[in-house]
């Protein structure tokens, strides 16, 4: 049976994504998106928050105060009337994988009043290689592999690592060991279990020339297609790109640090300098709610 209501919602929301919401929200202080979501009875219970690309240690012109914008983000989350009870960080916690950057990030993130924090590494977190800073801090729950899964409120969460191996064309890779683990992890699970997959680099190809994709993600998707509700969350590209393919919803989050250009605009995927009053509109988070017990509902919020 096709759920026409959800399909209509999806279409409506994609239509909103063409800018209507921003016309409405222009100039109005923070959680206007959340306020709109709260006014919509279909929004459901906050389940978790996605935060991404905090890049602690970055200090260039595009945002000389990434600690400040992260703090502002955390303040915004803590002020939510109904806070999610869990946060996923989809990588690039730090800019240069330095211990001092991880320390500051940990100190700031500890201010989040949203329960457990689950992470995956971004390529900026692991420039010192496997088994170094990131893994010393976050590797314990996965035997230093970095990938793991857990269940929370009836949803199965899968954390994947696609920044340790690369395909010859520059795309990220999961690798055979992780794919084999994923296959085993999903085996025997009911197709009605909602699945959330999170990883740093996009798990579909957005722009190959800049490495915005994962070369062997199709193998992972082949294990996931039988499930009725799959939400794939990534960071890496510092802007929202989304698509729906069958039962799989792909969504990339904004950064809390600095925006990046749209695919192919400029020499490469570096920091995009924008006027100060525009920056806060290009930074933000994603919160995810459960609707009707199973479908997940994503809301993106900017810092202004």
């Amino acid at each position, binding site marked *: 049976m096709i759920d026409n209501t959800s399909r209509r919602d999806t279409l409506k*929301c994609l239509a909103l994504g*063409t800018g209507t*919401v*921003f016309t409405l929200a222009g100039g109005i202080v923070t959680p206007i998106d959340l306020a709109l979501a709260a006014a919509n009875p*279909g929004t459901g219970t906050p389940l978790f928050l996605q935060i991404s690309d905090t890049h602690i240690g970055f200090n260039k012109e595009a945002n000389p105060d990434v600690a400040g914008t992260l703090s502002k983000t955390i303040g915004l989350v803590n002020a939510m009337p109904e806070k999610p009870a869990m946060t996923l960080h989809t990588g690039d916690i730090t800019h240069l994988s330095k211990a001092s950057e991880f320390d500051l990030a940990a100190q700031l993130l500890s201010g989040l009043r949203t329960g457990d924090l689950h992470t995956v590494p971004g390529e*900026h977190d692991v420039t010192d290689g496997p088994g170094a800073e990131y893994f010393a801090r976050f590797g314990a729950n996965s035997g230093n592999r970095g990938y793991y899964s857990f269940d929370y409120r009836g949803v199965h969460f899968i954390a994947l690592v696609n920044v340790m191996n690369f395909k010859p064309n520059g795309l990220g890779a999961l690798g055979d060991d992780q794919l084999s683990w994923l296959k085993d992890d999903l085996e025997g699970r009911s197709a009605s279990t909602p699945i959330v997959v999170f990883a740093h680099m996009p798990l579909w190809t957005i722009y190959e020339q800049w490495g915005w994709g994962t070369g062997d993600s199709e193998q992972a998707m082949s294990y996931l297609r039988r499930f009725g509700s799959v939400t794939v969350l990534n960071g890496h590209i510092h802007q*929202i790109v989304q698509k729906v393919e069958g039962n799989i919803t792909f969504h990339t989050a*904004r950064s809390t640090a600095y925006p990046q*250009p749209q695919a192919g605009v400029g*020499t490469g995927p570096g920091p995009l300098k924008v006027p100060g009053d525009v920056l806060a509109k290009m930074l933000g988070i994603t919160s995810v709610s459960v609707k009707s017990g199973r479908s997940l509902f994503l809301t993106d919020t900017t810092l202004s």
Partner: protein
Amino acid sequence: MLYKNAFCGACALFLLTTNAQAASMNMQSMPAPAGTPPNTVIIKSFMFTPMSLTIPAGTTVTWHNMDGEPHTAVSIDGLFRSPALDENDTYSFKFDKPGTYKFLCSIHPQMRGTIVVTAR
């Protein structure tokens, strides 16, 4: 019964602003800037320049990042690995044995280069 993911983009659209970075872009491969010391690989505009450098064994090669974005130089066969190089950081490695050594930037793995080491 199948459940569709409802998903709502209460999202900011990518604001198309004039971008200083875009204005100064140059998509073509550039030679190393004048005055570049020998045996140096310049990292600029998301490229290693030169992309292939030939040196005699025993030579030390220096990578110099001139981008505002950090880069690394990581040997594909594991011989060397620079830390993340921020703007103006350098990393050096001495090549003792002849051979062909491919490397990439582990932050932007589409960036590739080669060091060819000849016998002395």
